[in-house]
Each structure stands twice: as C-alpha cells, then as structure tokens.
C-alpha cells in the first residue's frame, strides 16, 4: 500500500503553496518530510490526507485515484504538533473515539483500546482527562488515537516537536517499532535533520513548496541532489563557497588552494560551489591531506563534549563542529582544517556534480 502524488499543486488565492510535486512514497519504514518551517510539510500532508483538495494533479493510494475523496471516506490517521485530544472525554474515550465512529462492538473496542494503551504505557491514565496529563502523556494519547484504528495512511506532523528532550528521544525510539508490523504507509514531518537520520527510512527534502529530492534517507544525506537539498539536510547549516577548479587544484581564493582529492579528479575545470559539512572542518589536524584555512572567530558554542565554532573566512561565515572543547577567544585568528575528501561540488545551476 503506498501513496503516489502526480504533479500535485496547490494555490491559495494568488499564492502558490505547493509547486508541481510528484513522489511515490515507500511502502515500508518512515517517509520523512524534512524542511524548515513554512517549507510546506503540513500542507503536503493535508493534500496526502485529503483534508485539502489539490489545485491540479492527482493523488493515488493503493492503486486507486483518491483525488478529491474527502478524508472521512479514507482510512487516514494523523498526529499534530499541538496535542489534539477531545477536551471533555477521558483518555479511554479519546482513544476509543475513532472506533466509536465506525461502530465497533463494545467488547472488541474495550480490548483494542486497552491493548494500545498498554503499548503506549497509558494504562494508568485511562480514566483521566487530557488537561490532567503532562504534555508527553497528551501526545501519547493522540498517538494512541492514531494507532487504534488500522489506518492505511498515518501522518505524523512534527509529533515530537513540543515535547521535552528526554521524552522526544524515548518516543523517537519507540515510534518506528510501533509501525513495524503494520501494513500502513507512514509519513513523518520534521524540521530536524538529526531526527530524520535517526528514524531512517526515506526522506523528502522540502524547500519553499517543492520537494527538492526524495530517496533513502542515508543516500540523500550523502548525495544531496542540489544545493537546496544539502542546505535543508544540514544542521548547523552546510558551509558553502565559490571555488574554481584549475588543473589539479581547487582554488578558494588567492591564499587558499589545494590539491584536488582523487575522488573528484574527473571534475572538469571551471567554477563550482563547494559544500562542506560543519563536522568536516575541525580546529585539529587529523591527516596530512587536511587543508589549512584561517578564520576570525565569531561565536563559539560549547555543548558538553562538542564545540560549534563560527568563523569568518573573509567574505562569509563558516561553521565548524568538532569533538573536544575549544574555548577560542572572540576575534582571534585561528587555524581550521578541511577534510578534502568530504567535499560536495555543485555546478552553477546548483546541481550536484561530485560528492
């Protein structure tokens, strides 16, 4: 069972919210929509669910054209970023609500709700009302409501964004397990590249109403199709710079140039945009192949065992993320080392040419 979007667009008034989008979601594992706020993740989900009718294009599910079929007539469940539960029903009634609508038999319903509650560790809370629960428990209730009916399509719209760190980690681990043996198509929206990597499956990177790339999460991370996808899939942001290849050397500016790594030796001469992820730049030299670059320290963020250092390389700011504590002074000029074998090269039209 899978969902296919064929040239789906959405215009609201004169504004285009979704540009022509075609994608065939994976049947197993999570389909992650990765993008910043306002990239169109929620809108895309609403289109998939049938909450919103596309302006043009078709939505196919399980081999059937379901364009324009309202959500009530499709077997969909959704979890939102806010904790959405019926305020004056108990947790039990909340979880049972989708089953009540289809008129499930009492004893069967009771069993099912209890089973799901057990799975989500909500059994002791069944008699309570949503406003007597913590945020995590409220979201578990909402998740239980989504899980209790055997939906064909499950949409999780940043379900963990409003939870505290510990709960988020816990639920992030549990979520894929819950869906493991269900034959449903799962879509998960997030703004965090880390979350996307941790959940695995497939990822679609979204930028301003367009899917810039779709494929296995790992592959998208390793080989972003274009600069936009690379930007979406990097936190802290990927470092970029205009470089040119002249013979066997990559020239960044008058002072910095280096011998091209043999991985990229087939690259033609000419101008490129270099992309390099923050954790491939370090204030510590690791091999002889590292390229030395100097920068003026702008900000240093120390988080436990990691240092995130923002520095100025002349015409723009770069970020380095590395293990160890490097309490550099602001304004100081320091050395950084680039791993030349971890570069991404984009051509003038921002398409990836070498990785």
């Amino acid at each position, binding site marked *: 069972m899978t969902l296919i979007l064929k040239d789906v667009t959405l215009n609201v008034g004169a504004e285009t919210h979704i540009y022509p989008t075609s994608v065939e979601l994976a049947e197993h594992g999570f389909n992650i929509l990765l993008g910043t706020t306002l990239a169109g993740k929620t809108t895309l989900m609403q289109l998939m669910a049938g909450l919103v009718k596309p302006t043009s294009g078709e939505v196919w599910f399980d081999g059937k054209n379901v364009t324009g079929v309202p*959500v009530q007539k499709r077997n969909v469940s959704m979890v939102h970023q806010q904790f959405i539960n019926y305020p*004056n029903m108990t947790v039990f009634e909340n979880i049972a609500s989708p089953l009540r609508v289809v008129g499930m038999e009492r004893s069967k319903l009771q069993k099912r709700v209890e089973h799901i509650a057990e799975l989500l560790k909500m059994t002791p809370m069944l008699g309570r009302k949503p406003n007597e629960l913590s945020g995590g428990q409220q979201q578990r209730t909402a998740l239980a*409501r989504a899980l209790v009916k055997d939906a064909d399509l499950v949409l999780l719209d940043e379900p963990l964004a409003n939870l505290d760190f510990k709960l988020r980690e816990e639920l992030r681990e549990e979520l894929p397990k819950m869906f493991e043996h269900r034959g449903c198509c799962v879509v998960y929206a997030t703004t965090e590249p880390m979350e996307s990597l941790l959940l695995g499956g497939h990822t679609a990177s979204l930028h301003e109403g367009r899917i810039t790339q779709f494929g296995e999460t790992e592959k998208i991370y390793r080989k972003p199709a274009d600069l936009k996808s690379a930007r979406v899939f990097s936190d802290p942001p990927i470092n970029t710079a205009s470089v040119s290849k002249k013979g066997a050397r990559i020239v960044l500016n008058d002072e910095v140039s280096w011998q091209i790594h043999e991985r990229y030796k087939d690259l033609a001469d000419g101008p490129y945009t270099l992309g390099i992820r923050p954790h491939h730049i370090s204030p510590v030299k690791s091999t002889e192949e590292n390229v030395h670059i100097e920068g003026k320290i702008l900000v240093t963020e120390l988080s436990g065992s990691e240092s995130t250092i923002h520095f100025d390389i002349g015409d723009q700011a770069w970020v380095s993320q590395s293990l160890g504590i490097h309490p550099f002074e602001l304004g100081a000029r320091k050395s950084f080392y680039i791993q030349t074998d971890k570069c991404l090269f984009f051509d003038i039209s921002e398409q990836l040419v070498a990785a």
Partner: protein
Amino acid sequence: MATKTTNQKAWLFVIPVVLLVAFNAVIPLMTVVNYSVQETFGDNVFFWEGVKWFEQVLQSERFHAALGRQLVFTSIILLVEIPLGIAVALTMPRKGPWVSVCLVLMALPLLIPWNVVGSMWNIFALPETGLLGKGLNVLGFDYNFTRQPLAAWFTTILMDVWHWTSLVVLLAYAGLCSIPDAFYQAAKIDGAGRWAIFRFIQLPKMKRVLTIAILLRFMDSFMIYTEPFVLTGGGPGNTTTFLSIDLVKVALGQFDLGPAAAMSLIYFLIVLLVCWVFYTLMMKDEVE
C-alpha cells in the same frame, strides 16, 4: 534560622485599596444596613426595629411576585440569548474582510445607552406609529404593549435580546477563534459530524467564556432597570415590574426606606448567592 523582621509599614500599601473599597462599597452598604434595621421619620431620628423589615419583605406577596417575574424574565433571557449567541457566533466568518464588518455590527447595540435603547424600542413598538407595533397590527396581530401584559413581556424580552445577545456572540466568537485548526482536522479525520464537532470540541473549548457570558447575562438581566422602566414603566399594571423597578417604587415612590433597604440587601444576597452557585457548578471540573 534567621528571625523575620517584623515591619508594619507594608500596611501603607494596602491603604489605597482599603479607602477605595470603603468609600464605594462598605460605607454605602453599611448605610443601607443601617436603614434596614431601623425606622425613621426624617430629621435623623431613628428607632430600632430589628429584623422586622426583613420579615415583612420576605412575607410580602408583592415581593414574591416581583421576584417571580424577575426569575422568569432572567430564565427566558438566558435560555434565548445564550443559545442564540452561540448560534450566531458559529455562523460568523473566521477569516476575511467580513470579520471586521460582523464584529462592528455585533458591537453596535452594546454601545447604545440603556435609556436610549428603552426609548428607541418604545417608539419602535408603539401600536399606532411604531414600525414594529404598526407592522404587527397590519399583519393582523392584535398588538399593544401598553395594554397587553403578554405583548409587554414580548417587547421587553425582544429588546433585551437585541441589546445583549451581541455580548454572548462576541464572547463565544472569541472562544471559537481560539480553537486551533488542527482540532477540526483531527475531527474530520475521525469522521466526526457537525454535531459531534460542536459537542466535543467547540462547546468544551468555549466553556470558560460561556461561563463568563452566563454570569454576566444573569447579573445584568437580574438587575435590569432602565430599559423596562423607559419602555413599559413596569406596566401594564404590575406585569413587568421587576425587582429593581419595585425597589425604586418602594424607596422613592413610597419613601419606605426601611423596607426598601431590607429589600436591597435581600436582592443583593440573592444575586451573590446565585452567582456563587453558578460559578462553583461550572468550574467544578476545572479545579480537580
């Protein structure tokens, strides 16, 4: 453990509030209490009467009748205005240019002073010249609010509904606007119908504002004076003489200050008691 320093200066901060409350609540109230237990013939000569006036008021049929009319009036007002207000709020647009138009239209009646509303409706409902009165008569209804008790009640209620339903609408609308879209989507996904959405999302989410609306409408309609006074003057006969109109008749018409004071206190206690009961009942779930 360090001993706390005792310092009486903090009382200074309380003085403004104490003075304010004293002058606008306690002192007037105590004056009324003073009158309610004494008899006076003017010249500041008072005779102690104890609870005589209270007994007299509580046993008087006139008071019972006025209280009865008041309760019926307030019940009708609540039964009409609250559901009507919710219904209107539900039909109001949530986005777009019509929102401000609707809000202004709704707010208009609230801006008109009570006595003007009374005069307006008086003129509007006059059977020979008023648009409403004449219109009803032309349509074949025998309508004369100055003579028929039923017509007087109908007009008074219609006037109050016109004047105050907007308040309920605005409060309910504010409650509705605070519900995130995601709730409606979730309900749609569950396959909930229009009624279920109202019953399980909109109504519970409006609970707080509706509590306020009911309390305000109860207090205001229970203490209503100016509008019916201007419209019907309490008539025909005594049929629209509500508690406050009766109170003024006793106090200023007959100049029975003792019974009037006792009546005021009883009136005040009824309002206070009913509000407290309402509030406690409606907030019961919230406090747990």
